[in-house]
């Protein structure tokens, strides 16, 4: 079985309310899966649930065959999952290089190959590696955040709205980097507000509404779907 992520009938939320009311999804090895949906559909919540950041009351999550439901985030990191939050996702008062170093906190031994890999993916960062992350532009900060997550060489990379607030040029660049990362064998699950662009670029997509699955399929199929079009494309 080549599915890196399997989420089954997930129920959970913050406090007593269940934001997620039975969400299921899978992601295969080296696949980009995008989660879209209207505001409040539970997209980011579903992603946080994978990372153990909220109370899961039902269902299960497995990563590469290991059941990680209810694990502490630091153990999930060790299981090969990295998560890039939407906001405050860099150490602002640390240099770009130190941010990457923190990403590799759980690794020991020679990290030069990992640095090379990240700096090859993000040449901009190599130039600015001594700069404080807080002094970078929004797009560059997003790259630092992704680079930090990639330092652990995860099996599964979770990105929460990586293009929020970025210019179209940066959005395209981030998407391109996602493809490059995928091509190195990493599975990427991302939440996106820009549904149209995201579906066009992803391998597969899930449309959530009111905390449950609404549609799923390849990006192209979903873009062609009338209902999805009505939801997002102003149809």
């Amino acid at each position, binding site marked *: 079985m080549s599915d890196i992520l399997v989420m089954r009938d997930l129920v959970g939320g913050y406090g007593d309310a269940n934001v997620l009311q039975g969400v299921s999804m899978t992601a295969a090895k080296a696949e980009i899966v995008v989660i879209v949906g209207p505001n409040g559909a539970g997209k980011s919540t579903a992603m946080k649930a994978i*990372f153990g950041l909220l109370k899961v009351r039902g269902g299960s999550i497995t990563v590469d065959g290991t059941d990680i439901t209810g694990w502490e*985030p*630091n153990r999930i*990191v*060790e299981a090969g999952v*990295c*998560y890039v*939050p939407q906001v*405050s*996702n*860099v*150490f*602002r*008062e*640390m240099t770009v290089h*130190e941010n990457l*170093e*923190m*990403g590799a*906190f*759980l690794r020991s031994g020679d990290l030069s190959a990992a640095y090379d890999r990240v700096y090859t993916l993000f040449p901009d960062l190599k130039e600015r590696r001594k700069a404080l992350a807080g002094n970078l532009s929004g797009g560059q900060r997003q790259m630092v955040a992704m680079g*930090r997550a990639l330092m*652990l060489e995860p099996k599964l990379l979770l990105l929460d709205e990586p293009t929020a607030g970025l210019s179209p040029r940066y959005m395209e660049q981030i998407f391109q980097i996602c493809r490059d990362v995928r091509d190195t064998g990493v599975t990427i699950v991302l939440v996106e507000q820009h549904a149209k662009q995201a579906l066009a670029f992803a391998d597969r997509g899930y449309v959530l509404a009111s905390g449950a699955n609404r549609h799923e399929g390849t990006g192209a199929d979903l873009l062609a779907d009338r209902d999805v079009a009505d939801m997002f494309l102003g149809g």
Partner: protein
Amino acid sequence: MGALEIINFYLVPGIVIGSIYALGAVGITLVFAILRYAHLAHGDLATLGAFLALGAVTLGGVSPYVALPVAMVLTAAAAVMIDKAFYAYLRERPKIVTVMASLGVALMVRAVVQVVWGVDSETYTRGIVRPDVWFGIRIRDRELITILAMIGLVLALHVFLQQSKWGKAMRAMSDNPDLALLSGVDNKKVVMLTWIIVGGLCAAAGVFLGLNYELKAMMGWTMLLPMFAAAILGGVGRVEGAVLGGLIVGIAEEMSTLFLPTEYKAATAFAILLLMLLVRPTGLLKGKVL
């Protein structure tokens, strides 16, 4: 009044007491930034360190400078134990509850000192030390050592925070705790490490205060206000800011006696604290505001 008098009677004592404040303020700023609460037992932990060194001096017959590392290790251990016993289980509660617990710890630590060592003033060594004169500037050995030890300890801490893996983890925890946890940093280890460092610095502040003045059960508590003023003046979370803040508060306190009765030295620190909160709460070096 000539320049030399100003230097000898105000600037040198100001730098000495400022160095002591700096040692304490660095600890306060670390707790404020990493653990995210105001630690009100900080001064009394310094008192404990000073008296533990006195114990080593009287029992072991060693000089206070030999007793200093002993006291630092013991106070660090005490700080870790206090955290485990009284603060650790409050971590999920609003931080202000831990501030309250630390007020209780302040009282408890002081009570222990008062029970074990009594309430009379003590000194490490007896006799009057005459200052050496360098180009008209009068300074005693112990004053010079206080200043140098502060510089040495802060530099060592700086190198640790900038270069070592766990030092970076501490900075990361101060910078963005959620992301540090997501990166796999073990919060418990960072907390323990912070208390080891803070406990050691507290002891150093206490020992040097005892060395330059005298040992009293209230010595640390009265130092609390200037230490906090220094940490906020420098910018919460800024180690170099805490040093700068400590020196400024120390010198300002000594200089204030030019205009104010000596009893009101403590008011200087208070005025600095309020002024900073009023005009620039992030401090001189742009620190955090909780």
